[in-house]
């Protein structure tokens, strides 16, 4: 096969960081080539160089054997390289066709020919087997379809090399599988695909070759048949990693959290959570899976006391806490790890010591007669930062100076440090790399072992399946299904996630 793209000795330095260190990579025609690595391994930098958003300090890019230089994304697009960003570059109020043709619109003179645009997009969609309605508003499409629009955008500009940056991050398992089908289809038509990911199973499933990056370097290029998840994980992290957390059996205690008929409203008054009920016991991880926007955020906030319950009851350790505010619930023993570290979890401009004291600064020993005791704040912070392995363990450092993984450790140190009975965690590993995920999962299982109750809400299905004793699926504000851990598998849970309750039951009926 011919090599369409070759990177030779690509080096890129940022102040204080060597983001890419003499990277070599080859991409064949019609190949799906995965680039695997942790956050900060240099994958994104490398892809931005290929897409013309950054220029390398050293090294060169060759297309079809000829060296090229890109000084802007326009150059890369003109050379046939299309990039689909993790955060879509789509205009929600525009139609599919308008989004696809933007920047290269058909028309005569000044006039924009909307009908011609729709016709061209329809043709393109048919040619690559990516059905989508050109006249639909992008805001009305599912995430999976929006991704198709992004891919069509690159083909409208005649891309023959497609870069997909963490394309499955926001997809359900079913949508991800459809995407893989599309990718194989495209590869079959001679399109070459660079597939950025940190998910081991996906990479093994869809890639023809896998290049692993670590600390800015390519450490290996392998074929899926020749390797395993364990080997890839070890290569990524650079040490032996414990991939799956083992859940030792724990004796289940009394109910810690009981939620009954809970209804919670959105800002606009429409119900986000409708009549949800469940109980979590001591020593139990209760996991809720679901596609984003199905009421998980509102449910979690209602339990943490940040959003009022429109109807229903929340009981904690036998007491009705429905009317309690967030502070009272926190002091009673409900720990909360929010989804948004930067906006809700931490005050970025505060020091680590201040962040650690946010929920108890008014209590002794941190405060005396209304005055905060700085020294007590400091020494307590020092101890917690070390206990939770925050690097660097400097109480005086501003929260924004830390990496995402270390920020999350600070939140865990604050929330778990005061010995809670219940942990409410929403997307606790979002955006973290393998090492940090290992730590967070370890903490959740440690709490479980200590007989605490844990509510884990996550969009990462694998995370829910791996950690939970009970798996619930949330869809359109309701719990569509609840399984004991042994009965929940990716397929069944995934079907409920997309609202296929009837479909799911049918298939199960047919399967029996």
């Amino acid at each position, binding site marked *: 096969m011919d090599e369409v793209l070759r990177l030779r000795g690509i080096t890129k330095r940022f102040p204080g960081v060597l983001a890419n260190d003499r990277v070599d990579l080859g991409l064949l025609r019609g190949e799906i080539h995965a680039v695997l690595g942790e956050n900060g391994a240099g994958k994104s930098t490398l892809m931005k160089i290929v897409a013309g958003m950054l220029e390398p300090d050293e090294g060169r890019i060759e297309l079809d054997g000829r060296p090229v230089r890109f000084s802007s994304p326009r150059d890369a697009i003109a050379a046939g390289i299309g990039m689909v960003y993790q955060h879509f*570059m789509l205009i929600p109020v*525009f139609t599919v066709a308008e989004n696809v043709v933007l*920047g290269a619109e058909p028309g005569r003179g000044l006039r*924009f020919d909307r009908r011609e645009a729709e016709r061209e997009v329809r043709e393109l969609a048919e040619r690559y087997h990516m059905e989508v309605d050109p006249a639909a508003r992008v805001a009305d499409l599912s995430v999976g379809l929006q991704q198709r629009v992004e891919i069509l955008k690159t083909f409208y500009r005649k891309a023959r090399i497609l870069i997909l940056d963490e394309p499955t991050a926001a997809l359900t398992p079913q949508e991800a599988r459809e995407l893989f089908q599309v990718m194989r289809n495209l590869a079959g038509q001679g399109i070459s695909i660079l597939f950025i990911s940190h998910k081991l199973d996906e990479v093994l499933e869809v890639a023809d070759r896998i290049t692993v990056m670590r600390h800015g370097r390519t450490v290996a290029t392998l074929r899926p048949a020749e390797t395993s998840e364990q080997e890839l994980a070890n290569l990524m992290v650079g040490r032996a990693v414990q991939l799956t957390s083992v859940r030792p059996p724990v004796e289940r205690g009394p109910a810690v959290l009981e939620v009954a008929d809970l209804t919670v409203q959105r800002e606009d008054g429409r119900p986000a959570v409708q009549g949800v009920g469940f109980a979590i016991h001591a020593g139990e991880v209760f996991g809720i899976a679901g596609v984003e926007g199905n009421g998980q955020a509102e449910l979690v906030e209602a339990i943490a006391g940040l959003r009022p319950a429109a109807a229903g009851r929340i009981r904690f350790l036998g007491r009705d806490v429905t009317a309690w505010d967030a502070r009272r619930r926190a002091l009673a023993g409900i720990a909360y790890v929010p989804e948004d570290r930067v906006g809700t979890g931490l005050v970025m401009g505060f020091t680590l010591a201040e962040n650690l004291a946010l929920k108890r600064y008014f209590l002794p020993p941190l405060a005396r007669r209304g005055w905060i005791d700085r020294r007590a704040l400091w020494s307590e912070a020092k101890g917690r930062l070390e206990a939770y392995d925050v690097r660097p363990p400097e109480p005086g450092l501003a929260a924004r100076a830390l990496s995402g993984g270390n920020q999350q450790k600070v939140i865990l140190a604050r929330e778990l440090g005061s010995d809670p009975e219940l942990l409410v965690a929403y997307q606790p590993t979002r955006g973290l790399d393998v090492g940090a995920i290992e730590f967070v999962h370890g903490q959740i299982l440690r709490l479980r072992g200590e007989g605490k109750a844990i509510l884990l809400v996550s969009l990462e299905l694998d995370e829910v399946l791996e950690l939970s004793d009970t798996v619930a699926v949330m869809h359109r504000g309701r719990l569509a299904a609840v399984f004991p851990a042994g009965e929940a598998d990716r397929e069944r849970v995934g079907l409920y996630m997309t609202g296929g309750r009837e479909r799911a039951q049918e298939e199960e009926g047919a399967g029996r």
Partner: protein
Amino acid sequence: MSLGDFLGVQTWVGTISWGAPIALAALGGTFSERTGVVNIAMEGLMLISAFFSVLGAWALHNAWLGLGVGVVSAMLFALLFAWGAIRFKADQIILGMAINTLAMGLTGYLLNTIFGYGGTPVNTPQLPTVSIPLLASIPWLGPVLFRQNVLIYALFILLVLSHFLLFHTRLGLRMRAVGEHPQAADAAGINVYRIRYLGVLLSGFFSGLAGAYLSIGALNSFNVNMSNGRGYIALAAMIFGGWTPLGAFGASMLFGFASSIAFNLQGLGIPKDLVLMLPYVATIVALAGVVGRTTAPAADGVPYDPSESS
């Protein structure tokens, strides 16, 4: 005076002439805001143009040349505003207020320095009022629509052109893309800065026409603070009109109508100051009723910084 007199021909003629300068500025405002720049400086741009139109018409003995001087002056100040707002990513509201304050001081100073305390000369040329043959003699409709200042006709033509430009051209699609999602527009190869400069400059052009209408269209003189808040009303009309040229025009005419009624009511013994509040009260009521129901361009008022893209 009966109700019939209130809704008579004079009220409608008044609606157009009170509404026209607001509508002109509001049309320009849609371009600025659709590309993502909140242009509160329209007030100052109008005032600048109102003064320089008179100055130009007087000095060059020609109202048309005066119009040109006025519009160009407004566009130069719009360029200044755009430079600060786009190139230096200044807060658009504060920068706009600075332009407005500057316009107020500069025109007041120049009025006194150039023309003295007697004000602008009475022999300053004025833009003509044109009766369209035949059409002007239609009862009611004739005087309201076809016996008007040239700038009113310009307004109608520009209204249609603006709508076409924004919603039926490639440039319009790109302008709206830049105001909604500049990162996406940039990734599609569109020069975000250039489009935003164009939007603000168009706004300057329209505000310039609006200012010229005040000083050498409806009158042939300039007074201190002649725009008198119309730029702000235009901004409100544009929001009320849902960031579309047709909507902005309709909303402007609503304010024109309120002003026209207020003007007529002055003769009735109701305290004048109270009556003159009417259009502003109408603005508050209209905005209170509509805000939250229409959606602004997503990136309206947010400076574009390419390094912040994901």
